[in-house]
């Protein structure tokens, strides 16, 4: 069976849940593996994701039709280049509404495009309700529930909270220690470059912290891709 072109939609209706971090991590994972991608940042005011990858990420205003055309038309191109969308929390509702208005899911199916929503959970009931609304609107939508312990820790009841979300697929992103976090947040820091050749002047503790943090994340991405490929495989 032909592989569909994947569109990763990193989103949450709330701020500080780590959606941009996930978009960055996915991007770095692809770059580290020598693969191309096309990214979209729907925060036209402070586009952190777009600013980090200016050559490959398009900054769009999802509230404007021009921005929607620039993004959704490209997302529906079956070119086997993974797409990554960092959905700004303020544009979340508009993004989902537009998906419905333009019949995005139906067209994606026809165009051999596979949208995968990386829904960033937090402990609020509104987050849970938003995930269920998405699943109810598009039961066929691939959803992965992402928890970022550094950005939006779910606390001691994490497993009970997660059990209520409508997807059993999970990505878990751990918390970074303070010095590694400062390094990761630096505007010119590239994780993929770091993994290929760590700067010699970087503290060994920071290097170790970053490597330990990113290894399980990349493993999850790799496992997920393998699972997707196996699902699409004609022969097993």
């Amino acid at each position, binding site marked *: 069976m032909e592989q569909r072109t994947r569109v990763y939609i990193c989103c949450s209706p709330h701020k500080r849940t780590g959606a941009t971090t996930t978009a960055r991590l996915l991007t770095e994972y692809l770059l580290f593996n020598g693969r191309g991608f096309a990214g979209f940042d729907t925060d036209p005011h402070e586009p952190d994701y777009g600013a980090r990858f200016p050559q490959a990420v398009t900054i769009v205003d999802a509230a404007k*039709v*021009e921005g*929607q*055309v620039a993004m*959704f*038309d490209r997302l*529906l191109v079956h070119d086997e280049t993974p797409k990554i969308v960092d959905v700004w929390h303020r544009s979340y509702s508009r993004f989902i509404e*537009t998906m419905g*208005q*333009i*019949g*995005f899911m139906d*067209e994606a199916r026809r165009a051999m495009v596979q949208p995968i929503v990386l829904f960033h959970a937090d402990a609020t009931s509104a987050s849970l309700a938003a995930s269920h609304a998405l699943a109810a609107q598009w039961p066929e939508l691939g959803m992965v529930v992402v928890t970022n312990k550094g950005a939006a820790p779910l606390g001691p009841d994490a497993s009970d909270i997660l059990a209520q979300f409508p997807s059993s697929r999970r990505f878990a992103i751990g918390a970074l220690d303070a010095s590694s976090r400062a390094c990761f947040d630096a505007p010119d820091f590239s994780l993929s470059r770091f993994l290929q050749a760590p700067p010699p002047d970087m503290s060994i503790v920071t290097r170790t912290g970053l490597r330990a943090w990113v290894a399980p994340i990349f493993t999850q991405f790799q496992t997920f891709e393998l699972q997707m490929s196996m699902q699409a495989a004609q022969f097993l």
Partner: protein
Amino acid sequence: MKPAVILVGADKGGVGKTTVARALADYLTGKNIMTRAFDTESPRGTLKRFHGDMTEVVDIDSTSDQMRIIDTLNTAQVKVSIIDTRAGSLARTLRALRDVGFFDAVREGQFTFILFHVLGPSIASLDEIAETAPFVSNAHYFLVKNHVNDSTFFEWDPATYQNYFSKTRSAGELTIPKLSEMAYEQVEIAGSPFSQFVANKTGDGRQAAHSFVLRGYVRTWQGKIAEEFEEIGLLDLIAGASPKK
């Protein structure tokens, strides 16, 4: 089924009358209802530009053109005729139809007559309702609020509105929702029916490269209009049924 005439008109220009006629033509075509259209914007019609295959441009004041419309109602294979009146000529068209005896034939049950009266946002549109009332006693009469170009109908206060409505019997209402300006503009540029645009085809049926987003907006907009037509039971009216209460 007896022949049906659907007149789309307004006495004010720029209210989106032809847009309504185009949406109607698309809806009927989509329902496999064979339809012909007359564009009274003679000599060059806007409706003709978008629905060239089904549309003839006519001069409603010309006797020969009146004959082309009315005298062929019974003989034409196509039983549904849309008449898109030129800007500002609804009352004149209605008078012309009265003078040739069309309304007498409607009263006798020979033809079905449906009037879509497209209103503008100003009070002048309400005055049109009063002017139109004498002609519509045997028509299925619908007042169309066209929001496609973002009209807000801000000048209509409810009391005035009700006062005018009470002057017309059996007037129903129809709302044409707003369509994204960019999507509307692209269909204009394409010069094709809305349904062709949605199908990513040019006006002459070739594959086009229209934006998916804009096609999606037009598709959703058409769906809402179809709901409006279904709400008033348009197909049943065309088939000769009584209006929905």
